[in-house]
């Protein structure tokens, strides 16, 4: 096997303010599981240590492993992860897209949460949210609604489009990256994200995440 070395300067790769996302974006083939930006028990009780062990150690790891298998000896192998997501999505390479997008979405999701999160965003982000939604509370409600109404598997997102901040939901592995939006925050609503702690009660889980775990600083860093 031959592993082409990348010629991308790190500045074009490191576009995220988050630890997990930056780790993943700076990796090259073969990819490894990016570390969580906090301890396994840091998000408890909203997200238990048990859930994180499975979600990070099994689910995220499986996407990484499947990605390496899918891109081995293909033209995608030499691409940075974001470019790989866009190219495989546009080229109808479903297996590569699903695993690359889930690898990235999960890293971005870990960074979207933090111990003692929630509360209000910093002034600049708050101002933009007020301008887009009317209030931070209205933004929270819209995010909750998107997360609860995404039927089946998928994600709820806070995204930046031009100067406007909006909420969107995506199915399965789909990511706002493919529609040219800038993700600010992600909430995973696949059942594996909450089944051990909340079973069928997705709304209780998402409400807890928004109230107690959302990393507004990460969202603000992503504005840049």
């Amino acid at each position, binding site marked *: 096997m031959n592993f082409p070395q990348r010629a991308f300067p790190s500045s074009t790769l490191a576009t995220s303010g988050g630890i997990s996302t930056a780790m993943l974006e700076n990796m090259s083939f073969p990819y490894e599981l990016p570390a969580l930006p906090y301890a396994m028990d840091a998000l408890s009780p909203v997200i238990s240590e048990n859930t994180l062990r*499975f979600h990070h150690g*099994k689910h995220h790891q499986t996407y990484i492993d499947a990605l390496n298998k899918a891109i081995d000896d293909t033209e995608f192998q030499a691409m940075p992860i974001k470019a790989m997501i866009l190219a495989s999505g546009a080229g109808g390479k*479903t297996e590569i897209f*699903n695993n690359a997008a889930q690898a990235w979405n999960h890293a971005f999701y870990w960074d979207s949460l933090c111990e003692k999160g929630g509360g209000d965003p910093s002034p600049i982000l708050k101002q933009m949210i007020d301008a887009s939604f009317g209030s931070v509370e209205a933004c929270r409600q819209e995010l909750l609604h998107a997360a609860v109404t995404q039927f089946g*598997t998928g994600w709820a997102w806070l995204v930046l489009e031009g100067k406007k901040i909006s909420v969107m939901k995506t199915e*399965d592995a789909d990511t706002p990256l493919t529609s040219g939006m800038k993700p600010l925050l992600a909430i995973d609503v696949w*059942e*594996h994200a909450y089944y*051990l702690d909340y*079973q069928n009660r997705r709304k209780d889980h998402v409400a807890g995440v928004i109230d107690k775990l959302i990393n507004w600083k990460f969202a603000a860093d992503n504005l840049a």
Partner: protein
Amino acid sequence: MEHTLPALPFAMDALAPHMSKETFEYHYAKHHQAYVTNLNNLIKGTDFESKSLEDIVKSAPAGGVYNNAAQVWNHTFFWNCLSPNGGGAPAGGLADAINKKWGSLDEFKKAFQTSAVGNFGSGWTWLVKKADGSVDIVNMGAAGTPLTAGDKALLCIDVWEHAYYIDYRNLRPKFVETFLNNLVNWKFAEANFA
């Protein structure tokens, strides 16, 4: 008409340890019930109120009414695909059709396993009978159902994570394997094929 949650064709603990009582307490009593409740709420005061469940599934546009109606129908069908004395082999015309398509029951199981494990995200994997009498395996997403595709449903497995997370966590392959070896109700599939 007011839709109701049909009774399970076995006791909640009848499939343990392959599918635990706890799984049915959620999958049947919470998830299936929620689809019934949501459907009743959504069709109140609409033309769908006078239609049968199958007619709603076949005529509703993509969206809430379709999703909930199809999920009510799919889950009822899925419970019938399970049996405390499941597994083994099909007989009669269905056995012949499976052998004709895949060569052997083992090859069918391999193909079904691969499809169900590869059904990305939430959805259903079906064994169907086509108009020409042949059988095939079809993967469908979230609330997909053969009712809308014109194929006759013979057998299915729910591969939403809620179907296996309590008993198998992330190990969907183990769940599908157990379904094929220990739970599948071939009598039900044979009756659907006839």
